């Protein structure tokens, strides 16, 4: 409870709520597109750099098992999402596959907010956690597209292209590039760039969440159209997948902080890479369904309730 309150009274979450409020009042507080793009590049690089510096310290042996676990979770969690959606909604198979793909992937900003929370509390976590983010970014999208199966057979060409697009997309490129730079850079040279990429990080997150709040707030208008079943699913799926992530993380020996972060990754839904890939590969699917669930419901839920929940579970198990 106190943890949830701490989360809600962080400047980042308050800025997110401000953005939602502004969207509801139709007040224009969005950052310009160019700045939004630049800030997201910054967050990707910064998370990558930090994770890379962590990788340098950890041995391959230490990282291998968690990475394998993340790959397995990347395949299992979208399947669980698929099952939950079939149980709770009447979405067509294509729409269900489209939503599924989002839950297989991850949300950079949810992860980022969770990291900032751990940092501000001084809680420990595996410094290579961002590697798991990079590993989880792609497989779930592929699984989702595969689950679309026959329904999307006609759009086969589109699927290959969508996959290529995700793999060479900005997100993967900057995240893995940042990991490589962080791992290769000498500690002293890393220190010279830390003021920008480490010290300023929580502040930039505030600006970015303000902007995302507006986008999420606009999505709230579509919630009624999505129907109660889908809204419930958008809360159930993160709880199921997030708890599974925490369990598996604890089982493979991660610290409570690290297992919680893995839960945040599996419990979150992509709202950047996945929508673009899904729009290209499954144009028949209605974007209102997957954007509303991932950005309008799951993202705020995780930000406010999911993150403290996964960390509490990780501490209870750890």
């Amino acid at each position, binding site marked *: 409870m106190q943890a949830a309150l701490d989360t809600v009274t962080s400047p980042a979450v308050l800025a997110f709520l401000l953005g939602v409020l502004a969207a509801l009042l139709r007040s224009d507080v969005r950052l310009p597109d160019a700045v939004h793009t630049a800030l997201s590049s910054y967050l990707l690089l910064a998370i990558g750099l930090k994770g890379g510096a962590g990788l340098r310290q950890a041995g391959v042996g230490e990282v291998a098992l968690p990475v394998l676990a993340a790959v397995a979770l990347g395949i299992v969690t979208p399947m669980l999402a698929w099952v939950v959606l079939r149980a709770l909604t009447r979405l067509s198979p294509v729409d269900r596959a489209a939503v599924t793909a989002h839950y297989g992937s991850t949300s950079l900003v949810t992860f980022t907010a969770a990291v900032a929370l751990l940092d501000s509390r001084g809680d420990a976590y595996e410094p290579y956690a961002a590697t798991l983010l990079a590993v989880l970014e792609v497989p779930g999208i592929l699984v989702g597209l595969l689950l679309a199966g026959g329904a999307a057979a006609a759009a086969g060409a589109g699927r290959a292209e969508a996959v290529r697009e995700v793999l060479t997309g900005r997100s993967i490129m900057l995240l893995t590039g940042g990991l490589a730079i962080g791992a290769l850079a000498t500690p002293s040279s890393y220190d010279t760039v830390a003021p920008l990429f480490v010290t300023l990080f929580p502040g930039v997150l505030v600006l970015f969440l303000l902007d995302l709040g507006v986008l999420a707030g*606009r999505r709230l208008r579509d919630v009624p159209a999505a129907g109660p079943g889908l809204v419930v699913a958008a809360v159930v799926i993160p709880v199921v997948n997030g708890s599974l992530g925490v369990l598996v993380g604890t089982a493979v020996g991660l610290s409570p902080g690290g297992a919680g972060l893995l839960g945040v990754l599996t419990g979150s839904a992509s709202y*950047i890479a996945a929508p673009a890939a899904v729009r290209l590969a499954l144009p028949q699917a209605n974007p209102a369904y997957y954007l509303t669930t991932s950005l309008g419901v799951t993202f705020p839920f995780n930000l406010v309730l999911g993150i403290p929940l996964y960390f509490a579970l990780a501490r209870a198990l750890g």
Partner: protein
Amino acid sequence: MRTVPVACLTIVAEAVVEARLLRDLETAGVRGWTVTSGQGRGTSHIDASDWEGANVRIETLLSTTAADRVLAMLSQEYFPRFAVVAWVTPAQVVRGDKFL
């Protein structure tokens, strides 16, 4: 100045299809284009601009027959699936061979 008539085809599309669309235009024989970015409202209410940046507005000068070919391609591949709008305007240019 002596001018030559060409067609000016304008396509407005959700940003996510930009790369694919330009590739398809090239395949259809289009030799030049100008892209600007914008926001828009239409009937499909996809509001793609909310999460993938803006719409793109592609403008290309080409022969009337090429314009026809591209419109046919758009009708088959894009109109049923994506938020795309296209129209053709008559235009006069000096260097006709550059565009035909």
